[in-house]
């Protein structure tokens, strides 16, 4: 058995496999299907300071090897999370991480401050890359100044591991990554979804209620891999790679590209046990290649 443990800016993980926000609920939804404690980290559904109803139905469209969604951050708000959901998840023995969103830097900071008070939440992931909301979200994540302003505000209010999730819908993702690193991010995760559209030719209508949505699934993997490779070479902080990972081979490719850990998203919808299969498969790869630990392959792709 290879050593699968990784350390992401102080966050100790038993293996490098995490679930991507919005694809695994609060973990509880999957508790009957997979042993949650075998997963390195669970990033729960995007949480905002105030409750949000999200966008109207329809919110998804399947695409070739992927899907579009425009959920729009439906959640019951940070206070509800702290009071009702946190007690249900605080004793799950893995890293339970909250994904935080907001409309303004102050929103993000206030929400992060509430989560900061929860003992068993060792990290947050800042979502500055949601393509499905009118205000906030990707509006911050697509400019260096916007991204840095949110990270600075949250850094003042939040004292544990701060991961910032980056948008791929930009010209230079490395510039954004550098900006959030300089503003105080402990790690970056990428990629969030790619903006896309689906059209129903027979009805001559756009399928999604707000017209556009975020593309995820295996279809986005090559784009994600390229961006992770670029960012890992640009920044000093650890990089968490995601985007279309559904097999251990996919995960290893992201590690080789420079990711210190990976997240699995849409594949959870297809196979609820995919996370533990990928963790096992990473171990098999390491053994097969005579590697003692995950860290040996991080960024180890030939130049």
């Amino acid at each position, binding site marked *: 058995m290879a050593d699968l443990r990784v350390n992401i800016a102080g966050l100790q993980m038993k293996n490098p496999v995490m679930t991507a926000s919005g694809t695994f609920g609060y973990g509880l939804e999957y508790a009957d299907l997979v042993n949650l404690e075998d997963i390195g980290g669970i990033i729960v559904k995007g949480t905002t300071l105030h409750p949000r109803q999200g966008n109207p139905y329809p919110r998804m469209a399947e695409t070739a*090897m992927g899907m579009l969604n425009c959920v729009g951050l439906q959640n019951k708000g940070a206070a509800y999370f702290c009071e009702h959901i946190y007690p249900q998840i605080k004793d799950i023995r893995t890293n339970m991480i909250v994904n935080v969103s907001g409309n303004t830097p102050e929103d993000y900071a206030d929400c992060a401050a509430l989560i900061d008070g929860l003992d068993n939440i060792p990290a947050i992931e800042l979502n500055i890359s949601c393509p499905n909301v009118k205000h906030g979200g990707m509006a911050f994540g697509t400019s260096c100044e916007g991204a840095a302003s949110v990270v600075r505000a949250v850094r003042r209010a939040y004292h544990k591991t701060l991961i910032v999730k980056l948008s791929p819908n930009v010209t230079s993702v490395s510039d954004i990554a550098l900006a959030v690193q300089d503003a105080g991010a402990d790690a970056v995760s990428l990629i969030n979804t790619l903006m896309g559209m689906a059209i129903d030719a027979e009805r001559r209508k756009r399928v999604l209620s707000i017209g556009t949505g975020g593309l995820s699934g295996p279809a986005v993997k090559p784009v994600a891999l390229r961006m992770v490779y670029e960012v890992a070479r640009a920044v000093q902080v650890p990089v968490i790679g995601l985007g279309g990972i559904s097999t251990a081979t996919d995960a290893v490719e992201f590690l080789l590209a420079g990711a210190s850990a990976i997240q699995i998203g849409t594949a959870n919808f297809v196979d*609820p046990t995919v996370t533990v299969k990928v963790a096992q498969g990473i171990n098999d790869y390491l053994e097969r290649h005579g590697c003692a630990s995950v860290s040996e392959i991080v960024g180890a792709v030939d130049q």
Partner: protein
Amino acid sequence: MTLTEVCQLHQRYVLLKARPQQGDLPAMQPGQFAQLLVENSPATYLRRPISIHDVSADTGEVSFLVQVVGEGTRHLAALSQGDRLNVLLPLGRGFTLPQSPAERILLVGGGVGVAPLLYMGRCMAAMGCRPTFLLGARTGADLLRLDQYSQFGEVYVTTEDGSMGEKGFVTQHSLLSSQRFDRISVCGPKPMMVAVARYAKASATDCEVSLENMMACGLGACLCCVEDTAQQGHVCVCQEGPVFNINELKWQI
């Protein structure tokens, strides 16, 4: 699971029967659904939510009535006996079962929406109830397995072309003007369910509908299949439904 039978019922419909590779089937409520994995299908990615059509306690088989509507269901229809079928089940909240055998229950189905009503009929029969079925389709050829339904209750049909039963939509059937029911449970295309819900509301009859909103996970995680409800706002059809009482919904009826 392993497919024990694949039966092409019609050009667009296939009946799949499957049995767990190990152990027994879990207990299932009528109206619940399963998520079927579509393998080797590069044009799709997600599972397909399919109603539980019937369950045989004797043989330990569950059956699915699949309408071929696109790439995913086309792949499912192309499976053969003996093939593996990766299934998550049972999911969601099913139909309300009667409290007593005396309750008069009307089960209304349209198109492939007739599927969950067979297992509902079987469960009701096991409780000593005899439901009435009102099944609608475009043509007589689209009305499948009627002999199965008639084991459990009286079957009335409508077809849009008049080739079987009364011509027209289920809401135009003479049964609705001649008989009263304690509850109507409906599964079918949304316009049909809305029309039945209107009839139920106008006649002060309890009514529940089975929604088929597009979903990804089926587990309440992706939040894609939401329906707007009067009390709780957006709720996941896969978890809080697919069956809802019409009073819970914000339909204009």
